[in-house]
């Protein structure tokens, strides 16, 4: 197996402790007719090898946009990144050339999308789409690439891979299609996988299978995983830490058990309360009141204040910083102590 012009695998000697990926103060805005939509407003998070970070938040909170910025697949324009750093293995990807970034995509960082049916090319066989990774990035022949594609399909446990390698996406079930997406992301054994709501489009029965497969492969290859979801239920079993997003910012980040035990931000608390629970069957489900803000007119102060049951005057004027809570967590709430203490 020959690897053509691979970028250096060896970390710089002075950066052995740097996280695999570190996003610092990332801002993304969209210039639209209605004004500037500030989709991402200073996001910070980091992932280490073998670690799973769950990014959680309501629809529209900027989860996908920040992930696409990391991946380098935002359409610019309309998107713009006015500020921020995205350090991958210690190097800022925002300062790299387009060609350099392209070579990271697929080889070092891969992405899995929500809707596998629309995310796979309808007119190319899955074997072609899988094999393409090897043909383009490693210069393999058509025949060798096909053999590798079959191997991949076996890995993600698609039955009769040899017979089905020439089939097209529409001939597979939803769960199988998402397995193919996972296989494609896995092809070059990247260091980091970003999975954007990988199970949201699937039947409940296959959601768990696909999630288990993803978690298992992540452990096996010791990859970093960013798992984007709006479903707190999915996260508990697989994530190491959680970053909760609201209106383009991280409002709370913490190890997974801390958050479940004691949320330090009223928004996280609201999300936790709105999970259906067996012991509360029959009771009306809690829902956070109101709607996420219009991103062209984000409220001053804490963006969550119009919906927050604990909001005070200071919340409408001062933007809360991410206060450290203990050693490994943070909460962007003026009243994080009160929130924790209840």
């Amino acid at each position, binding site marked *: 197996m020959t690897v053509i012009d691979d970028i250096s695998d060896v970390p710089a000697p002075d950066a052995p402790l740097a996280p695999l990926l570190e996003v610092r103060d990332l801002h993304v805005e969209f210039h639209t007719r209605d004004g500037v939509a500030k989709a991402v407003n200073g996001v910070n998070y980091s992932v280490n090898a073998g670690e799973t970070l769950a990014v959680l938040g309501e629809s529209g909170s900027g989860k996908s946009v920040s992930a696409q910025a990391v991946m380098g*697949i935002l359409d610019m324009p309309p998107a713009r990144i006015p500020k921020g750093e995205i350090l991958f293995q210690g190097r800022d990807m925002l300062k790299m050339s387009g060609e350099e970034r392209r070579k990271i995509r697929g*080889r070092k960082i*891969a992405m899995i999308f929500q809707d596998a049916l629309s*995310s796979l090319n*309808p007119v190319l066989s899955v074997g072609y789409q899988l094999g393409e990774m090897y043909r383009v990035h490693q210069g393999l022949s058509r025949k060798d690439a096909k053999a590798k594609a079959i191997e991949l399909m076996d890995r993600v446990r698609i039955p009769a891979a040899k017979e089905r390698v020439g089939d097209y996406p529409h001939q597979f079930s939803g769960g199988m299609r998402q397995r193919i997406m996972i296989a494609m992301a896995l092809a070059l054994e990247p260091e980091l996988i970003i999975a954007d709501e990988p199970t949201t489009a699937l039947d409940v029965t296959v959601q768990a299978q696909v999630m288990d497969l993803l978690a298992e492969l992540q452990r096996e290859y010791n990859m970093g995983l960013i798992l984007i979801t709006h479903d707190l239920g999915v996260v508990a079993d697989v994530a190491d830490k959680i970053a909760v997003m609201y209106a383009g910012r991280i409002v709370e980040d913490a190890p997974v058990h801390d958050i479940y035990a004691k949320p330090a931000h009223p928004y996280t608390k609201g999300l936790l309360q709105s999970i259906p629970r067996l012991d509360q069957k029959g009771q009306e489900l809690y829902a956070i009141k109101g709607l996420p803000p219009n991103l062209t007119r984000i409220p001053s102060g804490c963006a969550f204040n119009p919906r927050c049951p604990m909001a005070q005057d200071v919340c409408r004027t001062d933007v809360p910083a991410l206060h450290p809570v203990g050693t490994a967590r943070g909460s962007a709430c003026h009243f994080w102590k009160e929130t924790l203490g209840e």
Partner: protein
Amino acid sequence: MGRYVIRRLLQMVPVFIGTTLLIFVMVWGLGDPVAAMFGDRTPDPATAAQIRLEFHLNDPLIQQYWIYMSHVFEGDFGKAWNQQPVTELLKTAYPVTLRLTIVAFVIEAVIGVALGVFAGLRRGRFFDTGVLAMTLIVVSIPTFVTGYVLQYFFGVKWSIVHPSVGEGAPFKDLLMPGLVLAGVSLAYVARLTRTSVAENTRADYLRTAVAKGLPRRRVIVNHMLRNSLIPVVTFLGTDIGNLMAGALVTERIFNIHGVGYQIYQGIVHTSPATVVGFVTILVIIFLLANLLVDLLYAVLDPRIRYA
């Protein structure tokens, strides 16, 4: 795929019979062909009766059609008004019209798709706006106007090309008529391609292709174009019939002796065999063109192939 082809071929049989029977009835069944043959003169009853017998004119129309078709399949299309076999007319006229149609089709497909792809990739920029404006102008002017105008300027006034097409319709003489014939279709192809390309550049699967780290060229050629061209191929295929019909008009402008000329002669001289013969071949060409499109469509889009 094999079963798909056979099914499509079988479907062509009733369409062929239906259309040719219709034209046969219209030409032979309305009016008196014997009287028409003699024009102003009145034939003596004995001759008329003999002709009726010879052409099976006393039999029911459906039987006449049957007799005609069995002759056609033996390569006998009957005789034209001047006793020339219709097959000879077919042999001289069809290559000319087909060549004109092919020239127009190639111009339409190559230039139309190229303009559409580049406009679609540069949405909202100067080139795109230019293509939109130009195609709108082309679409809104009738073909015979563009035909006569181009013929006047390029052929007569500036003498860049021959104003009319010479004997045997050489290829270089057909460029101008081909362009005129292709004009409107070319504009539609360019617009359709542009829209399709623009739609596909926003598609999820294209985002995946970029996320895979594929080079831009590969993303566009291997992933986007194939999908974008599916509706364009369908349009091009169905447009072959349209082009052939348009060719009959273009032939008159540029004085080309093709199918249009012969059908016109056949009508003027009341020669049913000529008209029916030419139309029968026209129907066959339409059907084959449609078959070709359907097959190409199935090759391009696996969702059709396995439906």
